[in-house]
């Protein structure tokens, strides 16, 4: 199945390249767009594994929501990322050495012949026709992993609370609208009808 492998390596290379771009390009908008590209390639690899649901979710949630929001922030706030990159070149040699060392050590420990090849991890049998990926994920999520699913919800709730608790400030002079008051307003409070005599025509 050479076409399968060609597709896999193509998307893997694109993903690695895009991920590298994310951290190296100067312009933050390009960085965000590279991240989108990386997500797309990851999603393509997932499609190769026949996990359509997760592949689509990755596009919908990360590309559709998270990255768009991120792009908005980058464009609206005009963040200058130069100070963040300060010292990048200075730390680069040390970082590269440490990374290479770690990588070689990982290889030395883990690399034994046949550990990671297709004999040890055979290609799973293709799903039968009409197999629903979404249903399979849903079934697992709401039975075996119910607790984890609920706790993940709580983690998100905590994130919301923390974000609000750390950023919400009530300024004294702010003019906020009170929707309830606005809905309940009556005609008498806004319009005053005044009886008055008609004025004589002027300038005649």
């Amino acid at each position, binding site marked *: 199945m050479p076409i399968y492998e060609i597709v896999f390596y193509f998307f893997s290379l694109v993903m690695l390249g895009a991920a590298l771009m994310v951290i190296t390009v100067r312009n933050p908008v390009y960085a965000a767009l590279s991240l989108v590209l990386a997500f797309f390639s990851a999603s393509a690899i997932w499609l190769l594994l026949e996990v359509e649901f997760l592949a689509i979710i990755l596009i919908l949630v990360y590309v559709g929501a998270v990255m768009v929001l991120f792009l908005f922030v980058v464009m609206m706030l005009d963040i200058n990322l130069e100070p963040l990159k300060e010292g990048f070149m200075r730390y680069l040699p040390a970082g590269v050495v440490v990374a290479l060392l770690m990588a070689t050590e*990982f290889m030395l*420990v*883990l690399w*034994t012949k046949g*550990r990671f090849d297709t004999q040890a991890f055979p290609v799973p049998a293709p799903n039968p026709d009409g197999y629903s990926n979404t249903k399979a994920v849903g079934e697992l999520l709401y*039975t*075996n*992993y*119910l*607790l*984890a699913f609920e*706790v*993940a919800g*709580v*983690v998100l*709730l*905590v*994130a919301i*609370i*923390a974000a609000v*608790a*750390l950023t919400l*400030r009530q300024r004294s002079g702010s003019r906020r609208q009170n929707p309830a008051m606005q809905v309940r307003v009556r005609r008498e409070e806004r319009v005053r009808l005044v009886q008055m005599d008609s004025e004589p025509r002027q300038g005649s």
Partner: protein
Amino acid sequence: MNNSNMLLAAPEFWVLSMACVILVVDLFLREERRGIIHLLAIITLIFAAIITMRGDYASEGVRSALAFNGSFIRDQMGDMLKLFSYLVLAIVYIYSKFHLRQFRMFRADFYTLSLFALLGVMLLISANNLVTIYLGLELISLSSYALVAFDRDSRTGSEAAMKYFVLGSMASGMLLYGMSMIYGATGSLDLYAISAAVANIGSDDPMLVFGLVFLVVGLAFKLGVVPFHMWIPDVYHGAPVPTTLFISSVPKMAAFAMAIRLLQTGLGDLQGDWSQMLSVLAVLSIVLGNLAAIAQTNIKRMLAYSTISHMGFVLMGLLPGSATGYGAGMFYVIVYSLMSAAAFGMVILLSARGVEAEKLDDFKGLNQRNSWYAAVMAMVMFSMAGVPVFVGFFAKWLVIKAALDAGLVWLAIIAVVFSVVGAFYYIRVVKLMYFDEPVTESPIEVPVDFRTVISLNGAMMLGLGIFSSSLIAVCMSSFGA
């Protein structure tokens, strides 16, 4: 699959619902009636304790019960640690209320966030599955990050929160990487299944040991042992005292439970490997923690380094891999939480009129200002130093005994030598209180609930020391020793 045992998680459900209730109730409360939040939080803890104690899952010969398809476990160790978590959190609340009021930070967020953190602690204690462990840990971490930055106008607080966040995320990354390796080697997330798989494939599989290394690194970060301790002094120092009080006590019990679940339940067959790693961590922590604490002039930093050394002792209990060792570690971590609560409670007690009593000098002449509080602090310090009769002595003694039983004489010698070194800076506090002239003469005025609880908390150091046998027996029987 059987879901009727979902009720095993009743304490978790209760804490979660009450945290949400408190979140909503706060919206309808006026500023001056915030005391209700405090009351609700305490009630939550009391009922959580009742629900936990009423759990009747254990019967003849059955010592634990599983729920949620094996991802949740109830057993004696978990229940004990949970009960002590409630107790310590209640103490934390009573100390914190006074401090938060004084510093105009009395907001409901502190209570909701710490209750969510407690939920994380409970889940982590009861976790029997790598996913549950990770989620429980994240729940604790996220809440703690926010609590550290709780004083929004404090620069040091924000800096500490940022450091904590970055290092904490890195630790989570390490842990996840280790978990993925373990999953790759054993093909399961369930700790029992992992244990069975390890027995099957043998303990010398490099991938397993490789995963284990990262698990231990993640664990060491969360426990805060050398060389993964860098965040502890800065975070303890930068955070507001109530937060320091919280993160130095309750989550430590969860971290201990996590170590037990991962290392004993899951990877018990790799004991030979992780025992070596833990002994390096333990020795470094005991040595560095005690030496660095001597140089501190800030009491929060001093206590932070003392935490590092105490966690080294906890690891020392774990590393022989014997039931008595686990029991000793559990007893140590419970005792440590109570001591830490009392010590930071004293820091709160001395903070007056918007100024935190951070300096060691603030303890000068405490005996002349109020001899009872000086006595309480002295008891806490003696206990931390491991002076006999006080409870800290028994904790250290059990741990060292467990190491000796396993034939680790060199480790025991290092532990003893450096607890003597450590005694120096604990007793220095006592010296400052009794033999130095006070800097201020202002009387110490605290509400009656604070006074009662800190007195009880201090008396525990002596009381638990004299009557330590029953608590030790419970800890030991949790591991069948």
